[in-house]
């Protein structure tokens, strides 16, 4: 199988280049990550990729596969169009080869205060939720923070330092809709404090399109806007969609 992989080592290379690799698939090569790791182990051990759980939960191995962001570990390698073009997540600074610097992404994530804010004295056990209250978190708590959505969002490309981005806004919604949180008003106010944090979103919906977990950040952003208008929405959680096969 033919692969064309983005290579860049800032210590040696003046600029990035694409390197071709050819490898025969073995019966154990199911997912793209299996093959990348075999290329690394057998052909070129300098090839650099970030990965951890290799089963679609940690979000470490998010890369751009044939022009579309996805997780290498849950992408069926046999369905990919050849040559398979692998690049680092678009718009994120490259550290080396397929590894990107996600500092800016995490900075935006931290800016939405991704934790429960509740100054009331804690009860003896945990703060309880009714099943309906818990259901409202569906479709937002599952985010694995892989960065696929934010990296493929044009609004984030143009204003990465000021626009929170789809991943951060999905998490903002997760805490806005949490019945145990007491800072809903502050959170909404914070997102409306300038024309950038939330309102750069043009509902392009690339985020929803590429999310490997089938989540819909654009729907969450719509719900945040409705909450700002005191419209409660439909009450339940956000629907998840089927993840299209990366080809």
């Amino acid at each position, binding site marked *: 199988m033919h692969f064309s992989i983005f290579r860049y080592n800032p210590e040696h290379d003046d600029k990035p280049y694409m390197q071709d690799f050819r490898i025969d698939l073995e019966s154990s090569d199911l997912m793209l990550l299996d093959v990348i790791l075999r290329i690394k182990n057998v052909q070129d051990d300098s090839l650099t990729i970030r990965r951890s759980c290799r089963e679609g939960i940690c979000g470490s191995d998010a890369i751009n596969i044939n022009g579309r962001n996805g997780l290498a570990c849950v992408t069926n390698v046999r369905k990919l169009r050849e040559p398979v073009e692998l690049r680092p997540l678009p718009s994120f600074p490259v550290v080396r080869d397929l590894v990107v610097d996600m500092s800016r992404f995490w900075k935006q994530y931290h800016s939405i205060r991704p934790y429960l804010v509740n100054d009331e004295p804690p009860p003896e056990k945990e703060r309880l939720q009714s099943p309906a209250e818990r259901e409202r978190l569906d479709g937002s708590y599952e985010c694995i923070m892989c960065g696929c959505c934010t990296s493929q969002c044009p609004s984030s490309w143009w204003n990465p330092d000021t626009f929170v981005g789809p991943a951060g806004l999905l998490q903002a919604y997760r805490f806005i809709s949490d019945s145990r949180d007491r800072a809903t008003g502050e959170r909404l106010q914070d997102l409306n404090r300038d*024309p950038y944090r939330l*309102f750069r979103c*043009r509902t392009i919906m690339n985020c929803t399109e590429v999310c490997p977990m089938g989540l819909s950040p654009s729907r969450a952003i719509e719900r945040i806007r409705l909450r700002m*208008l005191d419209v409660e929405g439909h009450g339940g959680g956000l629907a998840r969609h089927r993840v299209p096969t990366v080809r």
Partner: protein
Amino acid sequence: MITLTGLRAWLVQRATAVYMLAFIVLFLARFVIAPPRSYDEWHGLMSGAGMIAATVLFFAALLTHAWVGLRDVVLDYVHVVALRAVLLPLLALGLVALGTWIVRIFWTIGG
């Protein structure tokens, strides 16, 4: 001072779009159902106080919609502050000029 940013701008963008859509649909429907047969008939239709108010409102909505939309384009793509400081006033000036022209036309019709 009431600023047109964030949620307010987003809301105004949607409200003006809904008004413009309704106006265009009704305006076209009127022309399809009972098209004016002569210039006098057309002039009469456009000179009614209600029609003038609705049309002026349509253009006000159009200009506001254009301001929010084009300003968004500038905020997205133009990051040099000096260039922004030139482009935004130019944009505002252009829209105000268009607005003045429209008001003048209706003033003439109404008068």
